[in-house]
């Protein structure tokens, strides 16, 4: 007797069949949160060449390894000074609760770094808890207020986001509660579609003038960041430099989102690894390394990732999804009254499970992170969240300095491309570093 014939098609596997049949049933594309789930070349494909006979290491726990990071030195009279090169990426009030924004600010302040607003304006909570707050100027201009421009420590003009370069933001109606609606000047419960283009400028020549306006309004005090989603990075970075940016933020395709079409998340943009190399090449081409600072984001998780990003030429990183996971995103429990309470049934009600959840768009986050629901948001105590995030950043920073010391660097910003090799041909080509055990960099003359 023969068994059932269960030969799955590569082209039409079960998930593809499910996608087609769901599309046929609903006529709608899938919208979800977080970032790309497909495998793309990433920082795991790089390795460090630490000190050896030809290099001299630092003692791991004794010798000083500086992490101070200064951003915005080009034109601003008040650059941003951070204790570590690890920052909190822009995430909106709306996507996250006000309690979460508060927690991010507390943790960032404790470890001496910055946090960033998002689409939806600046909350009083995050301004109060964040010593250094970067204020985003987005195409939607939801809640954009010159008083907040003056209250901010830097302004970040958002051109695009790694999860959806070329696309506007989304906030589905279930998360547009009265406060979110008021801040965004929208009706409660509306499925909000943010603009993908800025309303008052249309290209790089206009951006020069827009940046000048922001400088005039802030009396040239505050650094102006420009954030791009990673696509044509080499050209975009050059244009942003020409436009007068102090700091450029490049967000790779692994970057997260609160809600976007899956097809966008998985199929638009280029990996962070490739984006970073192109951004550094652009700065080098203009002789602007060190004058215009570079922040890289999009799937940064660990101290190893940060060390590799810095070695490739970034001045700092911004972390979004890792920050949410530190707070409890995808954890099977939340903390209430000092006790861990299971959230597994709530994940199941969303049709998912801890470790797989990307349901930020539903507003029903089982651990109270990406929600505006009055009951669910209580599942994240800002003090608990801040402690977790502080611990995470502290760990990442210790990992970073461990690697830097092993490479013989007294300052994490001294890590360099020469310290890196690649495990795969693809990563070697994208990062512009030799394939391990060879001197071969694909695409470059031997």
């Amino acid at each position: 007797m023969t068994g059932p014939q269960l030969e799955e098609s590569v082209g039409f596997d079960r998930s593809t069949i499910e996608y087609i049949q769901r599309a046929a049933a609903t006529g709608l594309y899938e919208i979800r949160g977080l970032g790309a789930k497909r495998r793309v070349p990433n920082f795991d494909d790089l390795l460090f060449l630490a000190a050896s006979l030809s290099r001299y290491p630092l003692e791991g726990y004794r010798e000083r390894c500086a992490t101070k990071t200064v951003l915005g030195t080009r034109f601003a009279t008040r650059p941003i000074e951070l204790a570590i090169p690890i920052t909190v990426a822009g995430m909106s009030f709306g996507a996250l609760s006000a309690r979460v924004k508060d927690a991010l600010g507390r943790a960032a302040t404790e470890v001496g770094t910055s946090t960033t607003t998002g689409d939806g304006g600046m909350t009083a909570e995050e301004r109060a808890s964040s010593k250094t707050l970067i204020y985003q100027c987005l195409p939607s201009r939801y809640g954009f207020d010159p008083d907040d421009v003056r209250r901010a420590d830097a302004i970040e003009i958002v051109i695009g986001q790694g999860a959806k370069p070329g696309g506007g933001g989304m906030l589905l109606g279930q998360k547009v509660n009265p406060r979110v609606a008021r801040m965004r000047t929208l009706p409660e419960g509306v499925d909000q579609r943010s603009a993908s283009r800025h309303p008052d400028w249309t290209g790089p020549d206009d951006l020069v003038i827009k940046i000048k306006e922001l400088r005039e309004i802030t009396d040239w005090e505050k650094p102006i960041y420009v954030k791009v989603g990673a696509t044509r990075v080499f050209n975009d970075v050059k244009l942003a430099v020409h436009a007068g940016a102090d700091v450029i933020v490049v967000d790779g395709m692994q970057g997260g989102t609160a809600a976007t079409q899956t097809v966008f998340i998985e199929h638009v943009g280029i990996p962070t690894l490739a984006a970073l190399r192109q951004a550094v090449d652009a700065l080098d081409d203009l002789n602007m390394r060190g004058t215009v600072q570079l922040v890289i984001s999009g799937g940064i998780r660990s101290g190893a990732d940060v060390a590799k990003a810095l070695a490739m030429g970034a001045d700092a990183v911004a972390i979004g999804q890792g920050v949410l996971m530190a707070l409890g995103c995808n954890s099977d429990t939340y903390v209430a009254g000092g006790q861990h309470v299971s959230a597994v049934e709530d994940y199941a009600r969303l049709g998912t499970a801890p470790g797989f959840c990307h349901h930020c768009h539903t507003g029903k986050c089982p651990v109270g992170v990406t929600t505006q629901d009055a009951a669910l948001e209580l599942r994240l105590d800002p003090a608990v969240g801040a402690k977790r995030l502080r611990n995470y950043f502290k760990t990442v920073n210790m990992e970073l300095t461990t690697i830097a010391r092993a490479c013989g660097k007294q300052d994490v910003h001294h890590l360099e491309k020469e310290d890196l090799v690649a495990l795969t041909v693809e990563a070697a080509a994208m990062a512009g570093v030799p394939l391990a055990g060879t001197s071969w960099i694909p695409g470059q003359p031997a």
Partner: protein
Amino acid sequence: MANLRPLLRRSEFDLAHDSLRDLNLYLHKQAAQDGVSQIEVKNPDGAHSIACGLDADLDVQIHGHVGYYVAGMNKHASVTVHGNAGPGAAENMMSGRVHIRGFASTAAGASAHGGLLIIDGDASLRCGISLKGADIVVGGSVGSFSAFMAQAGRIVICGDAEDALGDSLYEAVIYVRGKVRSLGADARFEPMTDADRTALKALLAQSGLAHDPAEFRRVASAKSLYHWHADADQEY
């Protein structure tokens, strides 16, 4: 760069000689402190960002044509341009009054949250784009995609409107007196109510215009794009 020179009490700036930085720094930091409430600006010569970011009860009179972002992000102040304005006049204004005596280029009043923007002449493309609560009165006509994604506030158009007026509107209301080449997605004509006529009469009076409110039509959102649904026309 920031100019740290001590600023003398001024009621007039001539941009043929004074720098834009000196002008804006004075308006931001010192005019109110000096008790100066009216400032004349001569020879703007198309400069960008004149009188942007004001946050005081000032009356700024600009004699000539201006570039981008005149009175951008204005709060409280009254700014009058005796000439034409470049793109983004009074963009993201929060309160106060901005009056363009001539014509305005693209994106006039973009994302403005409050206050009143008056344009005596025509306004170009995307007038009132992403409007968030301000009032805009245009004495002439407006270009295509005006009031695109406008969320709140009122736009009065005394002349004609080009294509896609009010595309993807939220809660903003448009009153238009002349011809409309086409409405944008989800925008529709609606009957004028007594409340509309009363509000329109007040806006026209504030702008020094004597048109009869009965000559205007109301455009508002059909609200069919407020929620995703499978049968929505994907051609918009």
